[in-house]
């Protein structure tokens, strides 16, 4: 499963209608009485073998020491960035407490994979929807949310499918996704469409520089083996300007651009001025 790496398989990706998917929402905990871990993926005729299989896969996705370790390590800096920028955009102290800084806002996580980003956002109070074109990823994400008791709506669909439903979100996230899509410009326009007029959009990806080739391809895939070989295609990496252009065409302006740099001493990622390898940006109208 590691090679699939949980990004929307756009070519021939499953096109489930969102209505079908709604029966699957991450199991609500309060008052349900059953211990969380049963993986009771609510209602309907769920094949128990399937549930067991997805539980095993969820375990791998969510094992911070396993194949997805880089994403786990990257998570705190991503979430901190989102939280801070959202607070700046919408203003602090709307209706949120310090423990739920995103309360009252809706968030869409495009290419949510196993839900590594969706769950923390939900914990911070956002009404979170995660979409992924891979049915399997969605099943994994749902299984895990049921285990942790975090409430996230997961839908197996592509961003385009969601546009038609009319749902719009305060926060739209395209984190470590765009380097895997076939037409970034179309993808960004679609993502922008899913954002409410006063919303905010986040994009995180890898820059196309010599340095990123050295770090992200040679270093991460070949030397350190953080990622399976072939995870990334350097030619598909985008420069910040190549993201800014389609966003501007969709009427958005870049509000912030921040680099993400690895600190080997502490084995952690921090925000940085250096955008040559990993970077994040946010945009709004």
């Amino acid at each position, binding site marked *: 499963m590691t090679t699939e790496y949980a990004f929307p398989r756009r070519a021939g990706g499953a096109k489930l209608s969102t209505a079908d998917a709604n029966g699957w929402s991450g199991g609500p905990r309060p008052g349900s009485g059953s*211990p969380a871990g049963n993986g009771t993926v609510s209602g309907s005729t769920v094949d128990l073998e399937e549930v067991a299989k997805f539980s095993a896969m969820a375990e791998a996705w*969510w094992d*911070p020491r396993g194949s997805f370790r880089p994403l786990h*390590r990257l998570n705190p800096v991503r979430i901190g960035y989102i939280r801070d920028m959202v607070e700046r955009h919408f203003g602090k102290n709307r209706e949120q407490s*310090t*423990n739920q800084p995103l309360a009252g806002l809706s968030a869409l996580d495009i290419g949510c994979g196993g839900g590594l980003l969706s769950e923390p956002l939900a914990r911070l109070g956002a009404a979170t929807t995660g979409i992924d074109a891979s049915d399997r990823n969605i099943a994994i994400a749902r299984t895990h949310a049921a*285990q942790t008791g975090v409430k996230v709506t997961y839908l197996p669909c592509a961003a385009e499918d969601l546009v038609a439903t009319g749902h719009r979100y305060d926060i739209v996230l395209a984190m470590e996704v765009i380097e895997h899509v076939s037409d970034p410009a179309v993808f960004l326009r679609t993502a922008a469409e899913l954002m409410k007029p006063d919303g905010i959009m986040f994009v995180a990806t890898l820059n196309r520089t010599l340095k990123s080739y050295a770090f992200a391809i040679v270093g991460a895939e070949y030397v350190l083996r953080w990622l399976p070989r072939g995870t990334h295609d350097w030619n598909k990496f985008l420069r910040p300007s190549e993201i800014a252009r389609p966003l501007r065409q969709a009427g958005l302006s870049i509000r912030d651009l921040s680099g993400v740099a690895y600190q080997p001493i502490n084995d952690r990622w921090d925000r940085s001025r250096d955008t040559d390898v990993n970077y994040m940006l946010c945009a709004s109208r």
Partner: protein
Amino acid sequence: MTDKSSSRYAPGGPSAERPFHLVSEDATRAAAPLQADLAIIGGGMVGMSLAIACSEHGIKTALIEAEPAPALTDRGYDGRSSAIAYGSQQVLKAIGVWDLLKDQAQPILDIRVTDGGGDQRDARRPGGVSPFFVHYSHRDLAGDAAPPQSGDARPVDAPPFGYIVENRVSRVAMFERLQACPNVTHIAPATALSFKLDAERALVSLSDGRQVEAALVVAADGRHSALRGFAGIGISESDYRQSAIVCTVVHEKPHHGVAHEHFLPAGPFAMLPMTDDRDDDGRIRHRSSIVWTEDPRLVPMLLALDDDAFGAEIERRFGLTLGRVRPLGPRFSYPLKLLVAEKYLADRLVLVGDAAHGIHPIAGQGFNLGVRDVAALAEVLVDARRLGQDIGSPLVLERYARWRRFDNLLLVGVTDGLTRLFSNDLPPLRLARDLGFALFNKLRPVKRLAMRHAMGLVGNLPKLVRGEPL
């Protein structure tokens, strides 16, 4: 002196019948597990501090304690006092406990370390037993060159090294503080019978039939931690072949805030200043807490002595610096062992305080290490919470383990080394350490560093230790 506050928790007192936040007895038994973010097993000083620090930040906490609340504050339960180093005091301030106990905290203004080994016939000679001693004055920390001079507690710029507070007093204060905390469910008396992982949650079964389900379980259940055993975490332990006799004593002369530590062949003997109180006739009573390390074979005999004979044994070791000394209240003894847990983490389990490390009381650092554990863990958990992280994730907890391991092992090494260096009477070693003392006294930067470390002010400090909010 603390009768006023302790009576609140005495058996039959108002709060004895209905401990706060207690889940009603029958309603929940055998029902769904209690849901929490954090389950702290062990409601002693370390467990309670952690519950207070975390619950303030929206971390839903279940605190499970083996003893019923009134017993914990009973005089007979724990006669020990703890040295609360300056850094720990900052933590207690930051979590709102300090104000509740500060009236019963005796500042330590001076520390006198004496090599009193050997000739015990001279031990009654007033004023000490060795020409060499280390004198730590809190004025050294202010950088002022005032000559070392025991006595009056004049206000000076430098903070005291720390404070001596009876454990019972700390517990009463923490218990009171807990009642004002949101998000805490206090369950007592109950112990953990099992610990198991259930997908992304941990499930603890309690002796009262209830279950608690949490993202993270904290073992704050002391040196003999059952949780540590359930999680299969091994320990290394070494026996000092010493026992500590601990009790409160009264003495004729005031202590002026001076803590004394005499290194005797059987082990260190500490006289730690406590606040004065009044006896039954209303007369002022000068009190100290003693930590007396002794050959375990002698301990039963010593404990059985009557007060006069026991007091005479103390004077034989300590001298008459404080005048006549007599014990007050119950005497306790503990075998002294060094204990280090092989690791601080298992899946969804973390060790704090004595469950992670038990050190020799030679430097009065046991509780302080526990408080620094609490400060670091609370910071790590609150930071994780603010990033929407699963607080039981290994990525979150590894930061705590890395952070604490160095500091803890350093103190384990220092206290272990000191104990082995001083608990003997070999002439060459004695000469070497006396010369070392004399040299140490002259090397102000080294001395200041040692003092600051003992105060908990060295290294990458958790915010709470720096006196900052989380």
